[in-house]
């Protein structure tokens, strides 16, 4: 099968949706003439022009609110946040307007927007640019959240997100943009991955590592080490979509291995893994042979220092150590 980078796969997904639906509009800071701060949208302005690919000023509350308003009328804006960390300056629009307008109107309005961009730590840019808000936004009913780990998932999920008639907040990762993976050829058919469907990225028998986003990549690396050096067979379940959440897949892997480590780039308090942990204890308590453990980002604002930032984040070494502490 052919391979693409995560960035190219996303771009291909965006390009296909621009072609499919004339109401899809990409907007954001530097997405057009500059070709994207992280080059996800490279070439799309040249291909689609000013109407479809729109450079906005640095004005997140303004342009995201504008996209929400336009979506209520039938436009399908896909808005790039250069960093998801900048959500804070558009929070009222993202939460009060996008998440609540359908509800407050008794179902009369709908808001088919996608807000996408990188949401990750690990690039030595300090606390303000390293927020990981998937758990935060998944906590608001009315919103959908996903966080793909591989190029194929990035393409398949962005297409599903654009077609979805609810607001979808799509969390990418600057450290994954260059990763290469197999992505089905468009000639073989429309490749869409539905929201709400987790994926077993590695089969295993002894313990389940449940993760999303870049933590999946770390979990896969840790699983290799656990197998090679300790004879432990770890299963890696990639959530892919945070809300809707594939609860059945979570419970199935727990029932298979009876031990769980949740790997989550969020902070420990609240967050995605806290919710997953709750679901497991509520629905699969009797399946557990050990307490649920987590590897999260160490509980402090993101540290700048390139010498140490990777130790604050989940990484294969921390995952291996956590697993070894349980068996």
């Amino acid at each position, binding site marked *: 099968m052919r391979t693409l980078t995560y960035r190219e796969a996303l771009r291909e997904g965006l390009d296909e949706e621009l072609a499919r639906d004339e109401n899809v509009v990409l907007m954001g800071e530097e997405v057009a003439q500059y070709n994207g701060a992280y080059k996800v949208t490279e070439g799309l302005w040249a291909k689609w022009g000013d109407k479809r690919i729109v450079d906005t000023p640095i004005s997140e509350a303004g342009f995201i*609110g504008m996209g929400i308003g336009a979506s209520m009328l039938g436009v399908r804006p896909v808005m790039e946040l250069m960093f998801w960390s900048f959500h804070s300056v558009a929070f009222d629009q993202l939460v009060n*307007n996008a998440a609540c307008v359908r509800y407050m109107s008794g179902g009369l309005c709908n808001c088919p927007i996608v807000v996408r961009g990188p949401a990750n730590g690990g690039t030595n840019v300090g606390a303000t640019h390293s927020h990981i808000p998937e758990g935060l936004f998944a906590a608001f009913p009315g919103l959908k959240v996903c966080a793909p780990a591989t190029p194929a998932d990035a393409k398949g999920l962005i297409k599903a997100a654009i077609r979805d008639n609810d607001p979808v907040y799509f969390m990418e990762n600057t450290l994954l943009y260059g990763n290469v993976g197999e992505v089905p050829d468009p000639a073989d058919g429309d490749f869409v991955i539905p*929201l709400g469907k987790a994926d077993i990225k590695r089969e295993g028998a002894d313990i389940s590592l449940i993760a999303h986003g870049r933590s999946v990549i770390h979990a896969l690396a840790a699983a290799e080490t656990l197998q090679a050096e300790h004879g432990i067979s770890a299963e890696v379940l990639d959530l892919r979509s945070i809300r809707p959440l594939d609860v059945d897949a979570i419970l199935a892997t727990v029932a298979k291995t009876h031990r769980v480590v949740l790997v989550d780039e969020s902070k420990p308090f609240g967050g995605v893994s806290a919710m997953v942990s709750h679901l497991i204890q509520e629905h699969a308590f009797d399946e557990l042979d050990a307490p649920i453990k987590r590897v999260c980002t160490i509980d402090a604002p993101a540290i700048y220092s390139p010498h140490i930032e990777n130790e604050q984040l989940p990484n294969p070494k921390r995952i291996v150590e956590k697993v070894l502490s349980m068996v």
Partner: protein
Amino acid sequence: MSDLNFAASPINQSLTPERKIELYTQMVRIRRFEQVALANYQKPGRMGGFLHLYIGQESVAVGTLSLAGEHDHNITAYRCHAHALASGMSMNECMAEMFGKQTGCSKGKGGSMHFFAPDKNFWGGHGIVAGQTPLGLGLAYGLKYLGREGCCLCYLGDGAVNQGAFHESLNLAALFDIPVVYVIENNGYSMGTSQKRSSAYTGCLAQRAEGYAIEWDVIDGSDIYEVRAKTHIAMERARKEHKPTVLEIDTYRYYGHSVADANFKKYRTPEEIENYKKNHDPIHVFRSKLVAEGVLNDELIESINQHAKEEVEASVQFAEESPAPTIADIATDVYWETDNQTEASKIGHHFFA
């Protein structure tokens, strides 16, 4: 008050006597609706939350929305009852919404601040000060994108002009040539803080538009003819040239910021309120003009008043007799996909216990 004769402007000359009576009737209906809403709010157990009354400002919503055509949309903040009724919503659905009933326009999920009627081009009803200003921009962006010749009237209060979202919206409106008309309904007070104590300005608030190279104007809201004459120019500029405008309409609210505003007689003098009621009340001013024009007479005035009273009393009865939402209703209207039971909605859990 201006000496200019706005009644003579072409957009007002085109009004038939019947249409003038209709505009007057709408203002009366809105006032009666809110007076009765207040009376019911004060009875225990009928309504919850806030009640932001528009009484004194009726010419603004009625005058501006009387100019709206098929592709003109509107959106406002939480003081939304007048815009809803002037957009063509029924008293029944609005009163029932305040009573928190299933038959309310938002099924009892929005309340007084959150009326909506997209089928009538009315997009709410928004609770956060200035939070609706980027949405109005987006509706207008959508009109232009979809190739419809129309505009969005986006209303905000004088207290909203200091919010960042409004300034971001103005910049984008000018930068992208978006057909939005921002209407600052200046009633002089952002909750209990007067304009002078809340805003830095020279001349007036609308003048801030100059910083964004946007056209602006100030309107005496007590004269519905002036409201229509000047708003018409702004709406045509938006529809024909895709250019935004900021209008500031000077008006006044007799009651507090909301009914919860216990100090509304303390931060202003009784004389100030009395002066407005006596000399600037938009309903009284328009009534006098229409009587002088020979369009209205005492009999007609009384009949309009009576009909409005009956309509609003019927809406109270409708609201009282309507069923409340059920516990099962709490978790509908959250996601379009789950409401419509699409294939996508069947994959994964959307709701959590």
